[in-house]
């Protein structure tokens, strides 16, 4: 080949990649589904509001105040969301470290879900920063606040996103038909796995530790010295509960992608996860009983806050614990899904209590999120679902990869 030939050859090759990427951008399924028609306006409105927020400041769209500095974006999208994204590291631990093959069929979808959750929750976090550009101070080390929990959480958070990306990247390589890359990426999975789990445990606990400094501001029923540990335990059963829900939905919607084997595996996997969740919830309840006695919570029983606490504990923690046990014993997959939804509610309420509802209860004006805040919160999750769907329809997450990528 002479010079021009080479260029032409490269041009062609490049064109092919581009054409492939552009063709992949086009929707693969029906456009005018009810889901799309409902969610698209919310997403567009949310994006508009985000632009508005950066143009006019936080006051213009939020109800944040001097008494309640962290609003629904932090509390819901970050503090609650991170617990629910914990399924990825738990499944990775079981599959890659313990070599339990049973959960392999749901591993990739859990990792993808975790990856997207983290990416979008970081976005929510940046939205609430008053001076978002200065976030680079943390990264480039313009003074490291090494004794700050938030600093450590931020770094563990960022590095974990990288690990999740590496864990998922073989699927991307398979999609792009990049064989060498695929081999390389599969080779370093173990490194990503080992560090990913470590980083997860620490930042999950770190989010709990953030609130240790708010002593005296959070109602004592939701403040205790064990918060870091409690948050880690929550991330185990909370994360797996979300995996259950995601799997249940995906197995319906993306059924055409699944092999016979995958379809058959589902119920067994859900039942297995139910077993782990019930054990997780049991240790969580056990810890709560110790804390209850130790911190003398009995004194608060009978008050409004006491009832709210009991409702959470009995209805959203102890009840699903028994439901999980029951569904594990009876191998009832539908029941597993029900228990998972209740468990997720429990985590939602618990973490909102810590970060918002039972926070600064003496504040003269209670914080209620504006409709703009709620729209943005929802839009972030909807965009995440759109991207999730886009990827599932293109990359080998549920369906098998190309033949050359077998076994991964």
């Amino acid at each position, binding site marked *: 080949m002479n010079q021009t030939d080479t260029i032409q050859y490269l041009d062609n090759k490049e064109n092919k990649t581009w054409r492939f990427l552009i063709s992949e951008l086009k929707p693969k399924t029906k456009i005018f589904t009810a889901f799309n028609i409902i969610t698209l306006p919310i997403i567009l409105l949310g994006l508009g509001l985000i632009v508005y927020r*950066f*143009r006019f*400041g936080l*006051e213009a769209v939020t109800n*944040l105040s*001097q*008494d309640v*500095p*962290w609003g629904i974006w932090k509390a819901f999208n970050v503090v609650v969301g991170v617990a629910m994204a914990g399924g990825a590291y738990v499944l990775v*631990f*079981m599959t*890659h*470290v*313990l*070599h*339990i*093959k*049973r959960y392999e069929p749901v591993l990739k979808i859990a990792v993808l879900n975790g990856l997207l959750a983290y990416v979008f929750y970081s976005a929510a976090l940046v939205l*609430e*920063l*008053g*001076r*978002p550009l*200065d*976030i680079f*101070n*943390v990264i480039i080390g*313009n*003074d*490291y*606040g*090494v*004794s*700050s*929990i*938030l*600093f*450590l959480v*931020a770094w563990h958070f960022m590095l974990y996103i990288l690990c999740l990306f590496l864990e998922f990247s073989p699927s991307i390589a398979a999609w792009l038909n990049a064989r060498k890359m695929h081999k390389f990426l599969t080779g370093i999975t173990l490194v990503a*796995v*080992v560090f990913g*789990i*470590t980083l997860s*445990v*620490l930042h999950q*606990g*770190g989010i709990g*530790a*953030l*609130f240790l*400094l*708010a*002593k*005296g*501001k959070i109602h004592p029923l939701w403040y205790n010295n064990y918060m870091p540990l409690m948050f880690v335990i929550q991330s185990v059963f909370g994360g797996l509960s979300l995996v259950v829900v995601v799997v249940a939905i995906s197995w319906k919607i993306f059924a055409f992608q699944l092999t016979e084997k995958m379809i058959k595996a589902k119920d*067994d996997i859900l039942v*297995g996860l139910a*077993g*782990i969740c019930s*054990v997780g919830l049991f240790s969580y309840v056990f810890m709560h009983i110790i804390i209850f006695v130790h911190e003398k919570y009995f004194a608060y029983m009978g008050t409004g806050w006491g009832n709210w606490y009991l409702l959470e504990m009995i209805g959203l923690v102890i009840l699903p614990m028994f439901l999980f046990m029951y569904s594990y014993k009876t191998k009832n997959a539908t029941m597993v899904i029900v228990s998972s939804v209740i468990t997720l509610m429990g985590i939602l309420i618990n973490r909102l209590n810590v970060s918002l509802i039972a926070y600064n209860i003496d504040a003269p004006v209670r914080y209620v999120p504006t409709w703009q805040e709620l729209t943005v919160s929802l839009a972030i999750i909807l965009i995440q679902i759109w991207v999730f769907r886009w990827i599932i329809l293109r990359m080998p997450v549920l369906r098998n990869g190309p033949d050359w990528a077998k076994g991964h």
Partner: protein
Amino acid sequence: MSLNRRTFFKAMGATAVALSVGKVSTASEAFSDNGTELNGMLYDMSRCVGCFGCEYDCAEAHEAEMPDIPRNPPPRKLDETCRTVVNRHETSIGMVAFKDQCRHCSEPACTAACLTMAMYKTQEGPVIWREDKCMGCRYCMIACPFDIPKFEYKSTNPKVVKCDMCVNRLAEGEIPACSYFCPEEALTYGKRSDLIKEARTRIIENPDTYVDYIYGEHEAGGTSWMYLSPVPFEELGFNMKIQKKSFPGLTKGFISSIAPVDLLLPTFLLGVYQATKSTSTITEEDEI
């Protein structure tokens, strides 16, 4: 040598903080980390007449908007437009005024919270906020037990507003504006340890004037700004439940566990990985 010794030791110190268990908490209340004695303020509420003068002086010293105080002002709170606020309280012995501002804790919760070291405890005592570092996360507001830092939500480039003990005036050898201009000498600036002695002397010499308590001597591990009161502090709305230990101590345990976990857990995981590798035919039942 590009890395001079000071920076080197500073960096070493920072690493040591991250690794050590509760090392920092041994720093005595009256001294900053490197041993300089902290300065502070003694505010005597039996002398304060509630003239609001210091609010104006403070605004002027910080080139901020002048406060607009009506004749008989309703109770006011600190907000993003002011660094200090004076409130008159009706108490059992009549009117007592209470000036609120940052307490300049010896071991501040806000600096322990701040991930960019924008909140910073200077060696001399003032806790300052540094605009070029802050990213506006407001964790300092969550952490401060006295609810001091305020945030300019209205702005697109918001600042965290709080008293800085007139750090600029201090640098020029002046004392803080409120103390300098107070006509009643209600605010005494000086070395923290001297101020505690002074406060004790006042209490002992005039037992009928004061309640026998120095608010700030031990609250939150000790603060640079301390209060003497002619009425029980509860009557003025002081939070008496604030823990006497320092707030950064609350997270020290967790922080010191991070480095070991970061190092040991991967090793452990690799061990488990190796151990379970050969027995990868685990049966369904023994999983949990």
